[in-house]
């Protein structure tokens, strides 16, 4: 086994051991799917938008991945408080490698969590294009990597959980609500439209919607390029900040 594998496995083991966390974190997406999906469905189709559930599910899968990924990245703060972080920081391996191992672990969990919500949505009546599923998984993976690395970068700068609420309210929530996860990004007031277009999650949602529900706004190549490049950049920044952590 090598560093990457052992740290990746660590995250997965911890994930599968906390059943409460798995169940707890599908509660919110499920609520969104049921309440919004069935609540707004009639209006959406009356306005000519088609089947709202087909539109909504990729957005809620993206949301699930976003929350799980950010949270996995932020977990570094706990590891710092409980001391385990020190153990990895003094090890004779590059800190970039440690950061990548952790990020891969967190991203895998986020994708699994997204897959769980996807499966549940099938029972609610979602009819995806299954041919495109492999490509959808690629997009899910990119969203997961990007936001786990972002969480890592942020957590590397924080000493404790006090800033967490701030990040949730001023970064994560706006990222979700202004990403096109819940409504189409066409015909919006221009300032919201601008925000949506510089929001990385918009491209993830669009990629998932393009693959699973055959509807894309930016085009899949564009989605892939934007997310891919941003992921590499954020991994680099996150790795650098992680390597500078002092405990």
């Amino acid at each position, binding site marked *: *086994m090598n560093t990457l594998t*052992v740290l990746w496995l660590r995250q997965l083991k911890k994930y599968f051991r906390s059943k409460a966390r798995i169940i707890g974190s599908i509660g919110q997406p499920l609520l969104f799917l049921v309440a919004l999906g069935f609540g707004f469905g009639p209006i959406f189709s009356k306005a000519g938008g088609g089947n709202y559930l087909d539109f909504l599910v990729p957005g809620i899968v993206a949301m699930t991945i976003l929350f799980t990924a950010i949270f996995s990245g932020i977990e570094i703060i706990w590891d710092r408080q409980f*001391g*385990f972080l020190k*153990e990895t920081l*003094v*090890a*004779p*391996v590059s800190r970039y490698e440690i950061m990548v191992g952790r990020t891969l672990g967190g991203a895998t969990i986020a994708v699994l969590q997204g897959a769980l919500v996807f499966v549940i949505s099938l029972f609610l009546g979602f009819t995806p294009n299954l041919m495109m599923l492999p490509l959808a998984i690629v997009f899910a993976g990119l969203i997961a990597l990007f936001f786990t690395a972002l969480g890592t970068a942020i957590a590397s700068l924080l000493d404790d959980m006090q800033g967490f609420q701030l990040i949730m309210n001023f970064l994560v929530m706006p990222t979700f609500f202004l990403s096109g996860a819940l409504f189409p990004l066409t015909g919006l007031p221009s300032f919201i439209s601008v925000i949506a277009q510089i929001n990385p999650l918009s491209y993830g949602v669009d990629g998932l919607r393009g693959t699973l529900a055959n509807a894309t706004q930016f085009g899949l190549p564009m989605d892939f390029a934007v997310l891919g490049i941003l992921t590499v950049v954020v991994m680099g920044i996150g790795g650098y900040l992680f390597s500078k952590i*002092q405990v």
Partner: protein
Amino acid sequence: MLAIEAENLSKKFGDFTAVDNISFKVEHGSIFAFLGPNGAGKSTTIKMLTTVLAPTSGKITLNGHDVLKDPNEVRKNFGIVFQDPSLDDDLTAYENMEIHGVLYHVPGNEMPKRIEQLLGFVELWDRKNDLVKTFSGGMKRRLEIARGLLHHPKVLFMDEPTIGLDPQTRNHIWSYILKMNKDEGTTIFFTTHYMDEADKVAKEIAIIDNGKIVAQGTSAQLKEKTKANSLEDAFIELTGHEIRHEEAAPNQRMRMMRRMRR
């Protein structure tokens, strides 16, 4: 070549100077005790020596490598048992050992044997598959030590390794460490508040107080210097009788409290 050399090392937290311009040398294969009252700056010094904390100023060389310029190379040369907990409570004892083994490049075919030997040594082998969060304080401490001994570094730092352990376990663990020192020439750098322990095992002792090294030498030299019968008396002679508050300005706070009582 020296195992550790610190020159004019200082660490400030804001205005407060935790380590104040200290210098010392540790020979290869030595057993070096770093003693001092609570808050003296021992852990802060160890953190700087082990690349966890950046010094405010000064220079450190570990096994010939510059700690500040070449931290990655330095990390290949030492092992450490921290004073504060550093286990993953949500993993089992075995998994904690295994992660350490992989991070420290213990060969895969040797790993199971070494883990079994060390967990057996600290009497945790039958608890190997239990989550660490179900362990008692002493069991966690024993696991930390077993983990620190899993790979065989050139320099081993131990920050109050035997804190909270019963005398039997302390003796047991020290005999293992002394054997490692003898057989493999491992340099040992440790702190403790048990003066008898330091007296028994240390070849060289430095005493730090308020961030400054106030005395250094063998146990015999320190006793002679202070005309004390035991290392404990020498220690108290050198560092005073006052109890330390873990506070930036201990004197001020005591004065304040006295005033309040009046």
